[in-house]
Each structure stands twice: as structure tokens, then as C-alpha cells.
């Protein structure tokens, strides 16, 4: 009994909660993601729904206190997301799409801004009859509406390995329109403050605030990004690169927090600088960081879900939310289409880009929280609720539309890495089937003529039941050059090498690679279940195969880009 009390005393509920909850969150989130992936819905949606279930609107296992405690993780994931997005903005891409980006960005951002402002303004005024309040709400909501969330959007791109002009454009737009949104918000908040607050507002301060925020973010991110790329020049070990990169990302977001700057923008600036200062090395860096991200992403999206309070809707807020949602969606669709038409983008971009910009999350929620701190409760709470609710809706439908756009524009599966290829290939995909079979009773003279007629380096040797007995390599045959006297009575059986390992056609390529490495082999015979010879896999051919496949997808993606310039 004493022991029992001792144990109870030892349990710290808070520690237990936070760590166990993080574990549960990761576990549940991933399972949710998997389930949704199975029914062809992007995993993000699954994470968010698991978040809702365990969050304030559901079981309340994860309450506000815990969410606040886990906030640093959110920052870290926002930082990584920003960094990865920034990495997509290469100079060459900007050059190629610069004009197009600019048009689309201005149009989709401004259209969303104006439409939301007009619709919510009218609705608010009709219900409250309060001009100041309505205009304040309207400009703030309009500014927030212009932002598009990179996280959920890029997550879908990564999940479906998409690549091409549409993907590039969307990544560019979502990376840049936060800046637009921040500028708009800075001005909107100045206007709203003047209208609402009785307190004297320093107009001068309000005017330079946005420049401080944006300029400062760019400076921090860009500066540290440059430093990081200089440091990484001296390192090639993956673990060091990972630690330095994550460390720098943490510093960038930490500094932005301290100095009241936009961490997403700062992290993006860091990515942009990295990818443009040392393009080759950054490719590796982004790869390594990407591999590190999944748990943080899962946590991030589950927390987004658990923050949503879906059970306290009033009629006013409900109808305002609807107005916001319709205005934003309509504005994004129309703006993106006009921008694409005006900038002579490809048909794919004109047709499908409008459906890729619905997503809204980090920046919008961040701005909403900012509003709640700067403005009276009525405006603050209303905006928080509208943004949370609409975020929930667009986060559910946004990824679905992005997915549809990726597939309709045929950009899916073109952004594969060598690891993806290895993971998804089987031995039979690269099996050499045309190797002429060598019977173990074949005399050397006959084997010599086979070697002279073909280019293979290794030949499987089989018995008369087609069962694998050994392998003859060019080295084995070379030994026979000592004398030709033996050629007529030596057989394949006498000079073949014993088989160390075999693989089946359905063996995954990754497993075959492991065997090659572990046994230091140059070839692996391929047999069926009855050890009958089917073919042979040469280790050097794996590299060829991967290079060829990579080149093929490269060409496919390049073709999509070329259609761009009609």
C-alpha cells in the first residue's frame, strides 16, 4: 500500500500529460492521416480532424493550457514550413515566372481583400448598424483574407510528389502573398484603430510599423540564411547539416518573436537566400530538413484542429463567417483567373490555379490573434471565431481542391527523389532478362562464344531442371586463358562461382540494395520460388535505372514547363 502511495506521489500529472499527449497526438494524428489517405483525402485533413476530436470541441484532452505549452512546436513547424517554401523561390524560377507571379499575386490577393471587405462590411452594417465597427471588421477581415496558407497546400504537393508550372506558381504565390497580406493588414489595423479607439494613435508609428515588420523579417531571415549557407560550405555530414539548419531556423523564428516580426516571412527569406546563394548544397539541406519534418507537421496540424471551437456560433458571427468565406473564395478564384489570363499563363494554370489558393492557416490565425490583442473584445472574438471556423472549412476542402488540380494538370508524381524510386521499385522492374542461360554442362568453348556475343559481365548457371547452380563472371573465364588445352573438357560447372544470395522478382529494390551492401556483391541472381533462374541484377545497373527514371520524370516536368511558352 505504501508503495502504491509512493508511486502516486511520484507521478507528476503535468509532465505526464504533456509528453504522453505529444505521443498520443503524433500517434493519433498519423493514424488519422493514414485513414484519410486511404480514402484519397490528403493527410492534413486527418490530422486536423484528430485535433478536433481530442481538442476543445471534442474530448478536451488537449485543452488551451496544453496548446499554449506546445506553442513553441507550432512556431518551429511554421519556421520549417516557411524555410521549405522559401527554398522553392529560386532565382531561375522567379525569372521565368516573375511577371506571372506578380499579376496573379496582386489579383488574387486584392480581389479576396476587396470582396471580403465589401461583403462582410455590408452584412455587419445591416445587422449592427454600426458604421465604425462594420468598416473596422471589414478591412481587418479583408486583409486577413488575402493570405494563403502554404502549409496545407505544400503538404498536398509533397504527398503527391507534384512538379510543374502549376506547382511552381502555387508555391510562389503562397510564399509571396503573406507579404501582401501583412502589408494590407498593417494598413487595415491602422484604419480600424483610428475608427474604433478613442485613444490617440500615433499615425507616424502606424505607417512605419509594416515596413519595420516586413523589412526586419527579411533582414533576419536573409542574414541568418546567408550565414548558414557559409557555415554549411564546410560540412557534408548529414547530421551536422540537420543540426545547423534546424538551429538556424530556431534562431530565426526566435528572433522574429522577440522583435515582433513575422516569423513565417523571416523563415521564407532564409530559405530564399539559402537556395540562391548555394543552389547545389541547399538541395541536400532541404532534403535533410524535409525528412526531419513529419512529426512536427503532424503535431502542428493536430494542434490547429484542437484549437477550433466549433460549438459557440451566434447568428451574427455565423452569417459573417459565411460572407467572409464566400468573399474570400470568390475573390481568390476570380483574381487568380484574371491574373493568369493577363499574364498569359498556361491553360493549366488558368484552369486550376484558382482552386489551389483556398487554404488558410498560420498567418491568418496569427493575424486574428493579433487582432484580439489589439482590439476590443467584440471585434477580437468575432474575428478569431470567423478565422478559426473558415480555416476549418477551407482546410478541409482546400487540400481536396489542390489534389484535384494536381491530378487534372498531370503534375502528380513528377517530383520524385531517388529514395522514392528505390522505395517503390521491385527487383523485377530492372531485371536483366535477356541474359542467355548457361547450362552447367556447357563446355568452355561454348561459354567463350556466349561471352563474345553479349555484353553482360555475369551469367547465371543452371542445371538441366533450370535450377540456379552458380554464376560465371568474366573473371572466372579469364582464368581459362592460361591455356586452351582444357577448353574441351572443362565445363561451366568447373569454373562457376557459388551463389551467395538470391532475390525474387518481387523483392523490393531497397532490400536488394541492402543485400548488395551487406555482402559486398556486384550481382544478384533472380530466381522464382523453386530456385529456377529468371535473370540477374547487376549493382551497376541500379544506378543506371535510377538515373534513367529520374531523367524521364525530369523530361516530363520540363515538357510541362515548355508548354508554358506558346
Amino acid at each position, binding site marked *: 500500500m505504501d508503495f502504491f502511495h509512493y508511486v502516486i506521489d511520484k507521478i507528476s500529472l503535468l509532465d505526464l500529460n504533456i509528453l504522453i499527449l505529444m505521443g498520443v497526438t503524433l500517434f493519433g494524428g498519423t493514424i488519422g492521416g493514414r485513414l484519410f489517405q486511404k480514402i484519397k483525402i490528403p493527410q492534413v485533413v486527418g490530422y486536423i480532424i484528430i485535433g478536433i476530436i481530442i481538442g476543445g470541441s471534442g474530448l478536451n484532452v488537449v485543452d488551451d493550457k496544453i496548446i499554449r505549452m506546445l506553442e513553441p512546436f507550432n512556431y518551429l513547424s511554421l519556421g520549417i514550413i516557411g524555410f521549405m517554401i522559401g527554398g522553392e523561390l529560386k532565382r531561375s524560377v522567379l525569372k521565368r515566372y516573375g511577371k506571372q507571379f506578380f499579376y496573379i499575386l496582386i489579383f488574387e490577393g486584392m480581389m479576396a481583400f476587396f470582396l471580403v471587405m465589401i461583403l462582410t462590411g455590408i452584412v455587419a452594417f445591416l445587422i449592427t448598424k454600426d458604421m465604425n465597427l462594420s468598416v473596422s471588421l471589414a478591412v481587418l477581415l479583408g486583409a486577413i483574407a488575402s493570405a494563403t496558407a502554404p502549409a496545407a497546400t505544400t503538404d498536398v504537393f509533397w504527398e503527391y510528389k507534384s512538379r510543374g508550372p502549376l506547382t511552381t506558381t502555387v508555391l510562389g504565390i503562397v510564399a509571396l502573398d503573406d507579404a501582401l497580406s501583412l502589408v494590407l493588414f498593417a494598413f487595415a489595423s491602422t484604419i480600424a484603430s483610428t475608427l474604433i479607439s478613442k485613444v490617440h494613435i500615433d499615425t507616424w508609428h502606424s505607417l512605419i510599423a509594416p515596413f519595420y515588420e516586413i523589412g526586419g523579417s527579411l533582414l533576419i531571415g536573409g542574414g541568418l540564411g546567408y550565414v548558414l549557407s557559409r557555415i554549411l560550405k564546410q560540412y557534408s555530414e548529414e547530421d551536422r547539416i540537420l543540426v545547423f539548419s534546424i538551429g538556424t531556423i530556431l534562431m530565426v523564428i526566435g528572433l522574429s518573436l522577440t522583435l515582433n516580426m513575422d516569423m513565417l516571412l523571416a523563415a521564407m527569406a532564409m530559405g530564399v537566400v539559402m537556395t540562391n546563394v548555394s543552389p547545389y548544397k541547399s538541395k541536400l539541406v532541404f532534403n535533410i530538413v524535409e525528412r526531419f519534418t513529419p512529426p512536427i507537421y503532424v503535431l502542428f496540424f493536430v494542434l490547429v484542429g484542437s484549437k477550433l471551437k466549433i460549438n459557440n456560433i451566434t447568428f451574427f458571427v455565423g452569417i459573417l463567417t459565411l460572407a467572409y468565406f464566400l468573399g474570400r473564395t470568390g475573390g481568390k478564384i476570380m483574381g487568380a483567373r484574371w491574373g493568369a489570363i493577363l499574364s498569359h499563363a498556361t491553360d493549366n494554370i488558368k484552369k486550376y490555379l484558382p482552386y489551389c489558393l483556398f487554404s488558410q492557416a498560420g498567418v491568418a490565425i496569427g493575424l486574428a490573434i493579433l487582432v484580439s490583442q489589439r482590439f476590443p473584445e467584440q471585434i477580437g472574438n468575432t474575428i478569431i471565431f470567423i478565422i478559426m471556423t473558415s480555416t476549418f472549412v477551407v482546410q478541409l476542402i482546400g487540400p481536396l481542391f489542390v489534389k484535384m488540380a494536381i491530378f487534372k494538370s498531370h503534375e502528380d508524381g513528377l517530383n520524385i527523389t531517388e529514395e522514392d524510386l528505390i522505395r517503390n521499385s521491385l527487383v523485377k522492374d530492372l531485371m536483366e532478362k535477356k541474359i542467355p542461360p548457361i547450362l*552447367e554442362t556447357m563446355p568452355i568453348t561454348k561459354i567463350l562464344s556466349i561471352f563474345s556475343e553479349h555484353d553482360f559481365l555475369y551469367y547465371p548457371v543452371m542445371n538441366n531442371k533450370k535450377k540456379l547452380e552458380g554464376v560465371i563472371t568474366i573473371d*572466372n573465364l579469364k582464368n*581459362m586463358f592460361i591455356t586452351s*588445352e*582444357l577448353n574441351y573438357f572443362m565445363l561451366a*560447372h*568447373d*569454373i562457376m562461382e*557459388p551463389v551467395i544470395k538470391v532475390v525474387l522478382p518481387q523483392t523490393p529494390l531497397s532490400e536488394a540494395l541492402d543485400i548488395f551492401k551487406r555482402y559486398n556483391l556486384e550481382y544478384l541472381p533472380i530466381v522464382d520460388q523453386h530456385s529456377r533462374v529468371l535473370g540477374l541484377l547487376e549493382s551497376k545497373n541500379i544506378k543506371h535505372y535510377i538515373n534513367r527514371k529520374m531523367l524521364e520524370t525530369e523530361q516530363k516536368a520540363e515538357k510541362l514547363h515548355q508548354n508554358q511558352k506558346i
Partner: protein
Amino acid sequence: MNFISYLKKDLICLFNGIDKKKEAINKLIDMTAQKEKIDDVKGLRASLFYREKLMSTGIGLGIAIPHVRFKGVKEPVIAIGIQPRGINDYKSLDDKVIKIVILIIVGQNHHKEHIKILAQIVSKLKEDNNIDRLSHAESPDDIFNILTRKK
């Protein structure tokens, strides 16, 4: 490397009373197993006879060279047996009766040694009248001397 350094007098015999291929090869294996350290005699026997099944090692001119690369063998082993009256059922490429049987065992990965020893023995036998001399040898010493004699 010369095959002569692997020749041992106590691995040379006259096949007294043996005139069947199977008995001849078994005799050489048994002799080897007695004098040399062979871990898996049964396996060795099986692989030698498996090889004979693929194609007879009677290479002509009255010579047979049963040979095998075998796991666990450190140094090449050469065992020789002579039957002046001939071993009737030993098939040979030129259909001549086999009188000289030379068993060669090398390590599994000793590809080069395997070929070299075979090549050296074949060319040694073809020297002068060596085949004829060996066919009429009267003792293991005789055989050893014929094979190790310098030209």
C-alpha cells in the same frame, strides 16, 4: 606455383585389382581422407560423382582427371592411381581405355590454382613419353619420379 609442390608419395598408388571407375575414384578419395584433413568426405564424394555425371573426366590418351573445387580445402590435393590393365567403364573423350587417374581437389575459391594445376598436369603428361611411362610404372616411387623429373 607448380603442381609438383603438391605431389605427395603417400597419395600415389597402383590400383591393384581395381578396374571399375567408381571403385577407382573411391579408392583415391579414401586415400586422401586418410592422409589429409577433409571435413566433409561424404560431400566431397558426392560432388566428385556429380561432376562425373555431368560429363566424364576421362580426357583422352588414357588419362582421367576427376577434379573439384571444394569448401574448406586449404591447400590443393593431388592423388594419383594407376591401372596398367585399364579401367574399362571410365568413359573417355577419345574412347581409349583409362589407365591413369589423377584426382585434384582445391579450395572453393581457388579458381586460378584449379586451372593452373590442371593445365600443368596435362602438359606434363603430354611431355616425352610420360603417359606410356606412367602406364608401366611399378611403384608409387616410379610415378613420383616420372612426374617430378626435369626435362
